[in-house]
């Protein structure tokens, strides 16, 4: 029984314009030629973060690279890390990994195992670098199975990385799970389009509120 989330893979180019490959190649070049201290890697929520006010006014001053690709699944991010996007010429101080919401056909545990595989891959490339894992966000205007799925992934993540009993040498050191999923679902169980304009992607004010804890954690890490 193979878990697709732990097997590095590239998406198929169904459209024929090779956009994913172009972006990957651009990121490989950026890794080689830039001098970042922080690297963000993940899906569309990471990619669009770079156009937000919190990025331009706060996060980017920490010398960041943004390796987000819209639509990315856990296994595509895994592949990218192992195939050039993490070949840097300078020491990296922190990596932010945020992916999983697009693995809609996988179980929470499969997604969780995939994220662990990503952590292992990052560590294989960058040693003891600090790894920041923001919790997966809820989605959809009303309660639905994807919200529960993402919630379960978060439960697994918090249990693995915050419970000392689950510490695993070579895996759990210097990994910081940051809770960002609270305060999005309202009292009536809906998500407002003022926070997520399409009930998945964040508005500018959504980013400002939800990624502030990530910014704070990075400031903490970089101070040490």
């Amino acid at each position: 029984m193979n878990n697709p989330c732990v097997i590095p893979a590239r998406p198929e180019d169904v459209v024929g314009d090779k956009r994913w490959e172009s972006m990957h190649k651009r990121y490989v070049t950026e890794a080689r030629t830039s001098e970042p201290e922080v690297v963000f890697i993940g899906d569309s929520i990471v990619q669009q973060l770079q156009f937000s006010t919190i990025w331009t006014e706060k996060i980017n001053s920490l010398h960041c690279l943004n390796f987000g690709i819209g639509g990315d699944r856990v296994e595509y991010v895994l592949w990218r890390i192992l195939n050039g996007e993490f070949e840097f010429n300078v020491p990296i101080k922190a990596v932010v990994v945020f992916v999983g919401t697009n693995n809609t056909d996988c179980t929470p545990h499969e997604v969780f195992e995939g994220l662990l595989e990503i952590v292992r891959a990052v560590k294989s490339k960058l040693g003891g670098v600090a790894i920041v894992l923001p919790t997966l966000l809820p989605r959809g205007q009303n309660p639905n199975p994807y919200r529960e799925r993402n919630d379960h992934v978060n439960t697994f993540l918090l249990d693995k990385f915050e419970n000392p009993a689950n510490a695993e040498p070579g895996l759990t050191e210097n990994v910081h799970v940051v809770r960002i999923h609270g305060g999005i679902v309202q009292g009536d169980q809906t998500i407002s389009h003022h926070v997520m304009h399409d009930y998945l992607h964040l508005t500018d004010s959504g980013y400002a509120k939800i990624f502030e804890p990530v910014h704070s954690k990075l400031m903490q890490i970089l101070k040490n």
Partner: protein
Amino acid sequence: MVKMHPCTKPLPVEDPDGDQRWMSIHNRFLSETREKDADVIFIGDSILQALQHTDIWNELFAPLHCLNFGIHRDLIQNVLWRIQNGELDNVRPKAVVLHVGTNNHQNTPEEIVDGITEIINSIKEKLPDVYIVVPSLLPRGQHPNVIRDKINLVNEILKSRLPIIPKVELIAIDKGFIQPDGTISHHDMHDYLLLTNAGSKKAFEPVHELLLQLLNEGEPEKDLTPSE
């Protein structure tokens, strides 16, 4: 006899076990038509949805009282369904900006143009007097590719088909993106599909100019007699 191409058959986005986001967005658009007065409605796919988050939207289009009914990934037949199911029902805009087709990569150029024509017919059924602005489809992908060729053909066919339809304005917005070496810069399209702030200015400033003209065309002549 009308030949039923897939692009001319209205189709909602089904989401049987997921999070129903498409239907939520459609319903929100229906509410907006009941709550807001709009002079211009933008309806279409990923390009229009992304446009709403660029600087140019706030600077140029918001002041014109626009609604943005773009949905990422929409196909021609999804936009057709939305128009036939209420998104133009409770509004009286002066212009509709229609931009869809890039996601119909599995259709032929003729099918795509047939679909766009069908959408235009539906819009005219709902709003007989409205101006319909159709920006040409944009190229995509960093390097030359088959999709660019297809999009070029679509734009060619649109050029021959649309000018004969009254109150439809086809406007070219695709020039200036393909560089001399054949590549598209990520400074214009950050993922070689969606426009950056710079790219959206280049493509949609002409649309803004055209809208200003169309919106002012109906204005009565100003009385130039000085008051006593």
